[in-house]
């Protein structure tokens, strides 16, 4: 039976949610079938099968491997807190409008290059109605950010992003309340667009944010009586409904096995991933690509080799093999979008999805390539020695 077909018969139906697994895990909404269908289209699966068959006749052994997966993201306290670990599962963001109209965001999530600063800027700017260049983000400093968990287990966007969203909504309301007082209007008739307070109805600019800030900070004597402007707001967020926001995806690997040397050449890789609302498509795709290559490394190259005395025998980069650019394929990424309803942002995590299915896709592809030889390998990394052993050549 074709691997795609067997998956179609077994994957949970896309309309079966919410549902609970036999082990008690709750899934809000996954999209296994839609993702699989998209993948098959992206990779031109049946054309590759035909190509595989043609090449097999010429003793060129290529394989296709498919791997569908789920990944846990946005963990609540169910991950660690409930066990007494001193790592927080909630995060907080404080946003404020400063005197010259700049917007300062302090967030408890952290940045290691995935784009925590970028997602914060994009969310705050969008919710508030300002241009990104007005924003400054402070993170990674326990003295100067709200108390939070940080960035791990794919939670920065889903949890930190939602905190940023909520805090900014409050700041926006506070600004419009002041604007209403200054402009003798009603807050409901105003909006903030492009760094200006505008009429919600016709979009006409009424007062620039920097001007509003100047009045608040330097000329509060000109404000109507009884007003105490508050141009800073803090909100925290922690998932309460679902202990984890499960995401899903499916990956495919197209590769060639040299049956004389046991070497594997990765020809192409595809991922379809569903992480809910996507804040910055390029950043999400790049997280996935990076994760995929870590999975490809695990599939083919990486292994800590210990001897029987517990000595690590390959503790250097010449002997522990990491993926370098020459051995890696291009990676096409597509998405299905099933936002979580737990937050207004609807974002789930995406940082680990690439790693989750890549290794399995490669392992399945190698086994698929070796099918004519009756060889099956259930060990990673799939070294040339393992492959040649499976082929009976050594």
């Amino acid at each position, binding site marked *: 039976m074709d691997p795609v077909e067997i998956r179609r018969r077994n994957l949970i139906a896309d309309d079966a949610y919410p549902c609970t697994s036999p082990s008690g895990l709750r899934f809000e909404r996954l999209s296994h079938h839609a993702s699989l269908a998209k993948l098959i289209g992206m990779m031109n699966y049946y054309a590759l099968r035909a190509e595989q068959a043609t090449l097999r006749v010429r003793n060129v052994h290529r394989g296709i491997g498919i791997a569908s997966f789920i990944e846990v993201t946005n963990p609540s306290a169910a991950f660690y807190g409930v066990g007494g670990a001193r790592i927080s599962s909630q995060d907080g963001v404080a946003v404020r409008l400063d005197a010259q109209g700049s917007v300062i965001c302090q967030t408890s999530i952290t940045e290691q*290059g995935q784009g925590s600063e970028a997602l914060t800027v994009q969310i705050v700017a969008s919710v508030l109605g300002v241009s990104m260049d007005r924003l400054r983000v402070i993170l990674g400093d326990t003295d100067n950010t709200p108390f939070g968990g940080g960035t791990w287990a794919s939670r920065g966007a889903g949890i930190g992003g939602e905190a940023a969203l909520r805090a900014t909504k409050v700041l926006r309301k506070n600004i419009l309340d002041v604007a209403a007082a200054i402009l003798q209007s009603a807050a409901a008739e105003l909006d903030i667009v492009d760094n200006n307070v505008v009429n919600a109805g016709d979009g006409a600019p009424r007062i620039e944010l920097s001007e509003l800030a100047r009045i608040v900070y330097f000329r509060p004597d000109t404000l109507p009586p009884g007003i105490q402007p508050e141009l800073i707001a803090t909100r925290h967020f922690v998932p309460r409904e679902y202990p984890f926001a499960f995401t899903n995806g499916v990956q495919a690997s197209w590769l060639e096995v040299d049956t004389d040397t046991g070497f594997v050449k990765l020809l192409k890789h595809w991922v379809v991933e569903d992480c809910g609302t996507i804040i910055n498509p390029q950043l999400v795709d790049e997280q996935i690509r*990076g*994760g995929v290559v*870590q999975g490809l490394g695990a599939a083919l190259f990486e292994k800590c080799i210990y001897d029987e005395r517990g000595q690590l025998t390959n503790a250097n980069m*010449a002997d522990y093999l990491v993926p*370098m*650019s020459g051995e890696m394929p291009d*990676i096409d990424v597509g998405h299905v979008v099933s936002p979580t309803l737990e937050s207004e942002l609807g974002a789930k995590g995406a940082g680990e999805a*690439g790693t989750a299915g890549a290794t399995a896709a490669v392992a399945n592809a190698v086994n698929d390539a070796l099918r004519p030889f009756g060889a099956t390998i259930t060990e990673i990394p799939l070294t040339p020695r393992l492959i040649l052993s499976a082929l009976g050549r050594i």
Partner: protein
Amino acid sequence: MTDLLQLSLVVNGEPVDAHVQPRLNLADFLREHMKLTGTHIGCEHGVCGACTVRVNGDIVRACLMLAVQTQNASVETIEGLSDSGEIADLQLAFRDRNVLQCGFCTPGMLMAAQDLLRQSPAPDREQIREHLSGNYCRCTGYHAIVDAIEATARARGERRP
């Protein structure tokens, strides 16, 4: 304790005189003596490429060279290439295509990329991957890096008379 040796070289166009231990490698010299910390140390055994610099026009592993080997040489680091504007288009392409995530491999990648484009103005993707095979990146998976270098090569080709 070994005697210090006198060393004279040019770093990013600036003449430098120093007294160093013979065993001091070029990467440590640049980082600790010159305070040019853009040259990163990832392995100290010549595999990862994070320490890539230019010596007399060729890219080298600064961790595998002794500082004293650069006597009278011209050394260029990422700071120098950056300030001269030589790689401005590459840096812009890297930024727009999100070629860097943590940024630790980036100086070395830029050095290697510029080295490639000086030798091969129109490399294909396989040639790009081959040339960068000495620069380890754990964040990006390399695809974006290839995209940005390919795009820069094309743009340079269009700008050439």
